[in-house]
């Protein structure tokens, strides 16, 4: 393996990690400020200008909190669970292309703005998010708390169910793009001056299904049953404190970022947009703007909607979204054969 490539990957990984962690930190601030705005209150605005140093304060607080392990907990699994939930959440970001190939000064070959690209990129991301469930299940089991256990069970059932609808909603895109590679999927949406996004181009239904199941996949309102504070106190992370809790927290927000990035790549054309062909530097900006739209949507939903009940959630997933996704596959297949 050429050393040059190894160095390039390491640098990209570091940059990606830093970007992801910063986004996660500021997403929490963004969420609290936006919620404050929607709910006619202030939100955190004391630490630094506009509360911009709040994430730092939160981080420090997490580190210095007492780390509690319940006496009756299964110690090994209890410690493993947060790590197991965080690692897949961070891993998925390596596959996301945030921009096209670009010329960078002092390097004589174009650099692609993603860490790596595999020919089964979409599936790989689904596989990794699927592994994240185990962290939640483990946490629920290991805490030896009934609320945690119920949260863990709810969560695993929910994730498994909605993963199905989500995967099915993607199939249409895959048929249209003819590839599972995220880079190629983005490249496929470059027409119409960078506006031939899948959402406009035969996949609006798939987009809506994906959007709903992505909210469910990340355990966010109105599908935040695993941690429904009014029923299960805090669900699977009831017993967790300090950095272990922070790891779950980061995992949740990282998952939100990844899901938003996935939605952007699959349906909103990734870094494609008007003028990108002439000026590739615009790509990452388009990408971030689209991602922010989805992240805002998450917060907006949280402020507007009550929480579904467990059975309603399951019914919705299995009896409504999944059949709809199957219909979408049929439509997409027809479109792919007839029109493309």
């Amino acid at each position: 393996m050429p050393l040059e490539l190894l160095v390039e990957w390491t640098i990209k990984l570091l940059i990606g990690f830093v970007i992801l962690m910063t986004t996660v930190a500021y997403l929490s601030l963004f969420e609290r400020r936006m919620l404050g705005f929607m709910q006619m209150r202030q939100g955190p605005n004391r630490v630094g200008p506009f509360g911009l140093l709040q994430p730092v304060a939160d981080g420090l607080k997490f580190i210095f909190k007492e780390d509690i392990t319940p006496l009756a907990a299964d110690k090994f699994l209890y410690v493993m669970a947060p790590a197991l939930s965080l690692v897949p959440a961070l891993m998925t970001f390596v596959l996301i292309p945030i921009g096209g190939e670009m010329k960078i000064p002092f390097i004589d070959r174009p650099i692609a703005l993603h860490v790596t690209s595999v020919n089964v990129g979409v599936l790989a991301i689904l596989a990794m998010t699927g592994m994240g469930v185990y962290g939640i299940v483990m946490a629920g089991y290991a805490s030896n708390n009934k609320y945690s256990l119920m949260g863990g069970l709810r969560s695993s059932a929910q994730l498994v169910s909605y993963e199905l609808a989500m995967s099915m909603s993607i199939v249409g895109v895959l048929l249209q793009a003819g590839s599972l590679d995220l880079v190629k999927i983005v490249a496929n949406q470059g027409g119409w001056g960078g506006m031939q996004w899948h959402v406009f181009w035969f996949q609006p239904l798939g987009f809506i299904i994906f959007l709903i199941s992505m909210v469910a996949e990340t355990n966010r309102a109105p599908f935040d049953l695993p941690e429904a504070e009014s029923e299960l106190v805090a669900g699977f992370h009831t017993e967790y404190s300090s950095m272990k809790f922070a790891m779950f927290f980061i995992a949740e927000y990282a998952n939100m970022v990844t899901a938003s990035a996935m939605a952007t790549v699959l349906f909103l054309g990734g870094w494609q947009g008007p003028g990108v062909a002439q000026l590739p530097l615009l790509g990452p900006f388009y990408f971030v703007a689209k991602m922010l739209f989805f992240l805002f949507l998450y917060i907006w939903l949280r402020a507007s909607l009550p929480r579904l009940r467990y059975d309603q959630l399951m019914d919705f997933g299995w009896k409504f979204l999944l059949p709809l996704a199957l219909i979408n596959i049929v439509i997409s297949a027809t479109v792919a054969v007839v029109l493309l």
Partner: protein
Amino acid sequence: MNAVPLVTNETETLFDSDEMVLSMGPQHPSTHGVLRVVLKLDGERVIDLDCDIGYLHRGAEKIFENRLYPMIAPYFDRLDYIAAVSNGLLYVGTIERAMKIEIPPRAQYLRVILTELNRLASHLLWLATHALDIGGFTVFLWAFREREEILKIFECFFGARLTCHAFRIGGMSYDAYDGFEAQVRAFCDTFPARLEEYETMLNENRIWLGRTVGVGVITAADAISLGLSGAPLRGSGVDYDVRKTDPYECYADLDFDIPLGENGDTFDRYLIRMEEMRQSRRLVMQALDKLPGGPIMAKVPKVIKVPPGELYHSIEAPKGELGLYLVSDGGTKPYRLRVRPPSFINLGALRKMAVGSLVSDVVAVIGSLDIVLGEIDR
């Protein structure tokens, strides 16, 4: 099903392989205080449940027996601390009835204005927590915005925001402050628009409907036999409101409607309380228009002694029929004062409403019963 066995220390016998006993509370975010609900679950389904109360018991009724009549009144503010004004009205009203004191009209109208404002505050808090229990985070904070305005009026009037106390046996201890009327009117003017905001957030929201329609149903017959009152009773279509059936103060002179439900479910109870808020605002506006001048205190003896005998008096508190049973031996202290707390009796219907539903429904039903533990445990 027998009522007792769930609350016990012998957990072994309760654990079958499929069943799980979940102790919800007393420190739980949505049991509205220190209520402990012991749930017997099959997966997420509630097979049986039992309420464990008494965590907030302060022996209020025993304290009453050792206090002079005027000294008792402030204790009432601490029963249903969400609706302290109503509680105060009940106590002074009972003693006035027992002593046959006719209180001046101005005091009556002021009392009605304040109790109706208090009903609004109580219902707003109910709406806030009920919405939060079902996940409507924003409504929670919005409702506090209106409640804050009422509490500001209270702060000016009573000098307190929570344990408001200005009613004396025989009238009011002080008159309305300057600008009271304007402030109340300003609030009443903005309120309907705000109420509509909540209704747009909830009334046609599919998730809200799914969580409330058909949840915690109780039939009219059951509601009557369980002794329910307030919105849980009227939600089942029983037309009973103490303000109409046994008018106290000046309610007989005022015009208002009693909203009734049909299905007796959580959604009907929600609609009724929303409509009650409109009616309360209407009552406040009417009472302000008709507010007479004159004294605010009737002639009351220096030392209050209630003639020997027994008396039951009740008012329509925000939570339901709040009653007080007074036994007097003719002395300066009551022989016995027994409170009929609507929350306590309404909570008795929880088992009937929630068994067979899901855990999330229990939370929704507790929210729709609108209980206050200070009143239940006394």
